[in-house]
């Protein structure tokens, strides 16, 4: 029996292999054709956009989907071309990918790894998707990335910030454009030191799951290196909604900075609670008490309302950036949807373009060829300045934005202001950094799925 470990429906859409009739069941094996799974043979190619459409991250997922739709439009030559005009690589022609029109399928990750994998599998097995992208949490990213590795499909991660995605759980078929916990820590620490001084006592509240752990570790390491002391680090349940029981002990500790290693609903609630308890008016040891949120997102900042004002954090990208890439993207996104894109939308849009570009440059959809084209790829014009897709761990290295909640927003989107653009050198680390799984972490070998 021939083994085609995943099926390849893309083939059939074209009608090229049909007509055998009932009498002659054909053994299909991907290897027999192009040597890789779901090779597109007709005039179209299908991408799989796997984003949260239900659950707490549904709005973020919806924004990711908007970005993907825009990317598809631009790839197929529609619209104003967006970042295609500013992208340093000029391989993309606006005629689809390798001349094939880009089509897409969507799925709901529900922000659960089981559901996300089910959805990704259906894209691979049923719809013949050649690449999977999207997602709004690290657990899902790691799970889907592992699936794509097994299946032999390229995975372009969406919003995932945990070190693990390109750290200890890195995979040869998976790529991440988004920044990570380590970079947040490294970028934030100098800014915090210059604003709040080097003699600070930090109290960490950490969401009790992998992303929380890596973020706490990263921020602690880099702030302690600046001279800060960590007085306590308390883990909070992921399902917690009211953080009062975790905030009140902060009042009694001698800490003068609270670091909230929370994201999404956790962050909205813990920050709101912290402000309610008057932490921002508090003075400790003659110093103003401060709150820090390592990972910001505009959508979450919106949920926390007034409470974000003046609070430092980091973000992957922000629409107020003035480089031409960002402006081009904001313009086409804003024109199409009426509001500026989020960082999730940005990273997803860029990932879609980077994938398409890599295919063009490789001249093939074969995952290993695409991976090779992406590895070590240096580019610019995508909103983050010169960027490197590092070959060793498939992580993008680029400038990191340190932002703070804006005091006088002019609109409901204008919530964050950029404080500093931390240059890429400051957030660089070795691929075998201990926070990234050490020397043991390995990409494994690339899988073509056939």
């Amino acid at each position, binding site marked *: 029996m021939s083994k085609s470990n995943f099926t390849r429906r893309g083939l059939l859409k074209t009608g090229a292999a049909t007509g055998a009739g009932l009498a002659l069941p054909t*053994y299909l094996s991907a290897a027999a054709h192009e040597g890789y799974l779901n090779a597109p043979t007709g005039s179209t190619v299908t991408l799989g956009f796997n984003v949260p459409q239900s659950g707490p991250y549904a709005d973020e997922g919806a924004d990711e989907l908007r970005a993907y739709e825009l990317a598809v439009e631009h790839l197929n030559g529609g619209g104003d071309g967006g970042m295609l005009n500013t992208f340093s690589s000029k391989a993309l022609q606006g005629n689809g990918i390798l001349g094939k029109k880009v089509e897409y399928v*969507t799925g709901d990750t529900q922000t659960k790894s089981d559901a996300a994998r*089910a959805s990704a599998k259906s894209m691979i097995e049923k719809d013949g998707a050649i690449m999977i992208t999207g997602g709004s949490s690290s657990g899902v990213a790691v799970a889907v990335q592992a699936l794509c590795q097994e299946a032999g499909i390229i995975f372009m991660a969406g919003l995932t910030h945990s070190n693990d995605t390109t750290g200890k759980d890195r995979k040869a078929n998976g790529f991440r454009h988004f920044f990570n916990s380590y970079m947040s820590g490294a970028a934030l620490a100098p800014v915090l030191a210059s604003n709040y001084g080097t003699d600070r006592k930090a109290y960490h509240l950490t969401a009790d799951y992998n992303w929380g752990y890596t973020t706490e570790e990263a921020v602690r390491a880099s702030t302690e290196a600046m001279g800060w002391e960590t007085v306590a680090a308390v883990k909070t349940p992921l399902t917690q909604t009211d953080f009062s029981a975790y905030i009140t002990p902060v009042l009694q500790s001698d800490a003068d900075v609270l670091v909230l290693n929370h994201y999404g609903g956790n962050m909205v609630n813990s920050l709101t609670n912290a402000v309610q308890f008057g932490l921002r008016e508090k003075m400790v040891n003659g110093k103003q008490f401060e709150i820090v949120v390592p990972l910001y997102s505009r959508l979450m900042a919106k949920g926390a309302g007034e409470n974000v004002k003046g609070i430092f954090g980091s973000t992957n990208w922000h629409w107020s950036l003035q480089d031409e890439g960002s402006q081009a993207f904001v313009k086409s996104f804003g024109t199409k949807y009426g509001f500026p894109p989020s960082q999730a939308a940005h990273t997803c849009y860029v990932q879609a373009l980077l994938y398409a570009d890599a295919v063009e440059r490789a001249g093939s959809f074969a995952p290993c060829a695409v991976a090779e084209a992406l590895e070590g790829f240096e580019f610019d014009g995508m909103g983050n300045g010169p960027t490197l897709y590092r070959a060793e761990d498939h992580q993008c290295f680029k400038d990191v934005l340190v932002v703070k909640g804006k005091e006088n927003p002019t609109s409901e989107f204008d919530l964050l202001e950029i404080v500093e653009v931390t240059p890429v050198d400051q957030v660089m680390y070795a691929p075998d950094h201990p926070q990234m799984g050490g020397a043991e972490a390995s990409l494994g070998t690339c899988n073509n799925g056939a």
Partner: protein
Amino acid sequence: MLGLDSKDFKLLLIVAALTMLAPFILNPFPEGSGMAQFNAGYPDLMQRFVIFGIFAIGFNILFGLTGYLSFGHAAFLGVGSYGAMWMMKLFSLNVLPAIAVGIIVSGIFALAVGYVSLRRSGIYFSILTLAFAQMSYALAYSVLTPLTGGETGLQIKSTDNPLLSTIPEGEIGRASLFGLDMRASYEMNAGDWLFTFNAGYYIAALIMLLAFYLSIRIFRSPFGTMLRAVKSNQTRMYYTGLNARPYTLAAFVISGMYAGLAGGLLVAMDTQVGPERMFWTASGEVVLMTILGGAGTLIGPVLGSGVIKYMENILSKINKDILHEWFAFLPDGLEDFIVAIVYPFVGKGWHLTLGLIFMAVVIFLPGGLVQGGQKIARLFRGKKASEDSDEKSTQSTPAE
């Protein structure tokens, strides 16, 4: 036949035929056509149909027969998965020992949870089981991370070297049955149709048939009768010299083992497990599957799980573009109007449709989908047959 009376045997044959022919039945629409979106005959979903079918069949042995409503059954599914996963990581990539370990681990866990929870009945029992499951979930997510992998869960990694399996350098181990890869598929083309026959699916389906057969045997056994007696009247049971506790505990453990089997199979088909598999909504899902299909009936839970998984995997993938494609034949204004009406119910709105179905079924078909099927069958059979079945209903043919 096989210790079943002819009616049950017929049912088993029908279910066997349906599962064996599922790749055809679930793919009724030609590839590339607008309706192909509704095709469900791809390996992953077919596997999920039968695996969650097993889960629901097992749950039904407890809930359908004894009336004890466990609200924490997903814990056994999760524990079974973790057990099977570790077996594959450490011992062998062969799925059989992994599944066996999943069943055993879940069985032991169910014995402990059941022993405590069954001291109470009614909603107090439900809350006890819920509490155990939520504790398992919370601990798996956090404190037990070294054992469970926390949020990320467990996958087979390139660094895993199971004792009995040899994996080529740099490759990641894959679940197999004596060398047969679970993901191996054979595809058949017939005109515009494409049918996929997946090794993993057929293994899961055979196990499901076995599980279904065992459940029929349990339903028809004196043990099954005793379980129904527990549901019906515990007082009379005690005053008939019978101790209800070991009966309910046995049912609880058996259904926990079914859940472990389902959990082990999930890992065998897709080598990954995460803690949200044990969250209370997952426990709620199997309750809904069972009630939706028809609690206490043989085939109901399988139907119920099929409907819910279908919604989750098919309906959720319908996006605006696909709707526009479907209704493209309409005049523009009308097309937009129809799409606007339909869109909230599909894609990201699939939960809404699911909620409406729950309500509709329970309002109009109190006996679940099985009752709906009986109603339709009665319509077709006409008046004479309807008299028969009326008589039957007063005679209470147990469960089908």
